[in-house]
């Protein structure tokens, strides 16, 4: 397979780049062709590809020590338990949590947010209490709160944004009121790419005694996260957007909050003792991990964390930032192009529309050239409404993407314009 070269004009050749280009070879899927062309995978905000290290860590678990965890005295079970718990410690270090019992394995960001809404929110919310989200949330950080509002009579409010896709911080401060019980916001917007100033916003919320959940789904593959420095109360992310497998994700929560919360689901593993009349719940984190978890998934996630940390977020961030700027300039120069989301602080997401061509048609034309982008509303319909578009085309980048791929994207967009414009 030919790896698109880095010798593209207008990109300066920082010395980290050849090293990252070599990383492409770690991802077996990037060698395949789609419709006769080398795959250009630019749908990383939906899910990332998996490096060999992750695929193999999971296969190794199934080959060498597949068994259930926390249950058997036999050797396999102990080995499996060890690898599973090792993964928890890797997550703890990755997001700089104070304790490994603050790391709850869940199915993904969606489940993490639902867990907090139901276990933290539901027991204490009263009618007219307020939950604050923002205008740029993914549906998974809207709908769980709407359900909670229906259950409790609480009211959902949203921090608005400007035309660039940046939150209006004055409005935010105004909306934080004496009835606000929770702030839930995204670290990075999946539809716009905006990086929110969450540190500052968390400080503000805490000054009003409001706990904060951060949806980190789009952040963790692109920047280091330190939950203690941020001082967020909950942080949620999905493994599959971070080069790990689907079906596993993480809810981080501060010990005191998690301890005070009732379990989310009942079942095996989450109890200390059960009689038919009374159950004593297990300690953290097991209280929130009912049933057999995705053991291979957690192990795969651990391998993914090792993988990105070995490369380091400094070169990843620099590479993606330059790539985003390069691709944005090129797309913006196309006739009739409008970039949706032009915040000063952006990560890795290029959402756009082309005059007279529906994004869905763009998606098909690009697919015919082996280029995978996402088209549609990106599970953020309120964002589409805010920008008065039914849908956008979205190219989203990861550490293995190259300027050559951005060139192929733009060439294909020009083809689409010739054909459909």
């Amino acid at each position, binding site marked *: 397979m030919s790896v698109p070269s880095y010798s593209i004009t207008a990109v300066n050749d920082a010395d980290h780049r050849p090293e990252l280009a070599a990383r492409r070879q770690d991802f077996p899927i990037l060698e395949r062709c789609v*419709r*006769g*062309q080398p795959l250009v995978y630019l749908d990383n905000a939906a899910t990332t590809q998996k490096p060999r290290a992750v695929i193999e860590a999971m296969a190794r678990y199934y080959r060498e020590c597949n068994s259930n965890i926390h249950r058997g005295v036999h050797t396999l079970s102990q080995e499996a338990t060890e690898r599973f718990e090792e993964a928890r410690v890797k997550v703890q270090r990755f997001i700089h949590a104070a304790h490994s019992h603050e790391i709850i394995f869940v199915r993904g960001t969606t489940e993490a947010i639902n867990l907090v809404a139901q276990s933290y929110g539901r027991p204490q919310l009263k009618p007219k209490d307020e939950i604050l989200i923002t205008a740029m949330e993914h549906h998974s950080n809207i709908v769980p709160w709407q359900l909670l509002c229906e259950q409790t009579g609480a009211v959902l409010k949203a921090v608005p944004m400007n035309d660039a896709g940046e939150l209006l911080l004055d409005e935010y401060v105004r909306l934080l009121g004496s009835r606000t019980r929770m702030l839930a916001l995204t670290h990075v917007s999946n539809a716009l790419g905006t990086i929110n100033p969450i540190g500052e916003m968390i400080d503000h919320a805490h000054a009003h005694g409001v706990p904060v959940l951060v949806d980190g789904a789009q952040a963790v593959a692109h920047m280091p996260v330190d939950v203690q420095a941020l001082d967020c109360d909950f942080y949620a992310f999905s493994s599959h957007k971070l080069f790990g497998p689907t079906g596993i994700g993480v809810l981080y929560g501060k010990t005191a909050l998690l301890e005070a919360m009732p379990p989310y689901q009942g079942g095996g593993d989450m109890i200390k003792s059960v009689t038919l009349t009374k159950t004593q719940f297990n300690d953290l984190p097991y209280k929130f991990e009912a049933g057999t978890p995705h053991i291979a998934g957690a192990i795969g996630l651990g391998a993914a964390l090792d993988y990105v940390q070995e490369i380091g977020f400094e070169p990843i961030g620099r590479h993606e930032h330059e790539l985003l700027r390069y691709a944005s300039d090129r797309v913006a120069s196309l006739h009739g192009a409008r970039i949706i989301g032009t915040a000063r602080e952006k990560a890795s997401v290029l959402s756009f529309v082309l005059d007279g*061509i*529906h*994004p*869905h*048609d763009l*998606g*098909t*034309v690009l697919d*015919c*050239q082996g280029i995978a982008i996402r*088209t*549609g*509303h990106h599970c953020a319909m309120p964002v*589409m409404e805010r920008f008065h578009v*039914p*849908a956008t085309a979205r190219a989203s980048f990861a550490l293995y993407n190259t300027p050559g791929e951005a060139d192929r994207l733009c060439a294909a967009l020009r083809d689409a314009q010739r*054909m*459909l414009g």
Partner: protein
Amino acid sequence: MFDLRALYQEVIIDHNRHPRNCRRLDSADRIAEGYNPLCGDRLTVYVKVHEGVVEDVSFEGSGCAISVASASLMTEHIKGKTAHEVDQLFARFRSMVTDATPTEEGLGKLEVLAGVREFPARVKCATLAWHTLKSALSNEHSTVTTE
């Protein structure tokens, strides 16, 4: 490169650029809205039925080239047909865009949409107008979605 022209034939591109019967129909006695949440396509189909026959039909809305062209072609095709005939036509149309061994006969100009078969993700775009029409004819006054 896969031959995109099999999907985006000239007729389709023409109907997307210049959709036929794309207006509100003030005399309509049946109206339905269709929505495809996957791509944000929205259509309203207006029908005037006289003595069991589609006397006039039009549509409004926004969408991708496939859904707009399909709606436009549909409105040209069904004038003068009974609801039963429209049902049969829709069944054959759906078979053309989804089945491996479709029965295309009798579809006339609608056959330009046969290329959709190669793009399963686009079938809903091609059938949105038809679903909406069907809902209008059965006088369901709700919004239909393709989900």
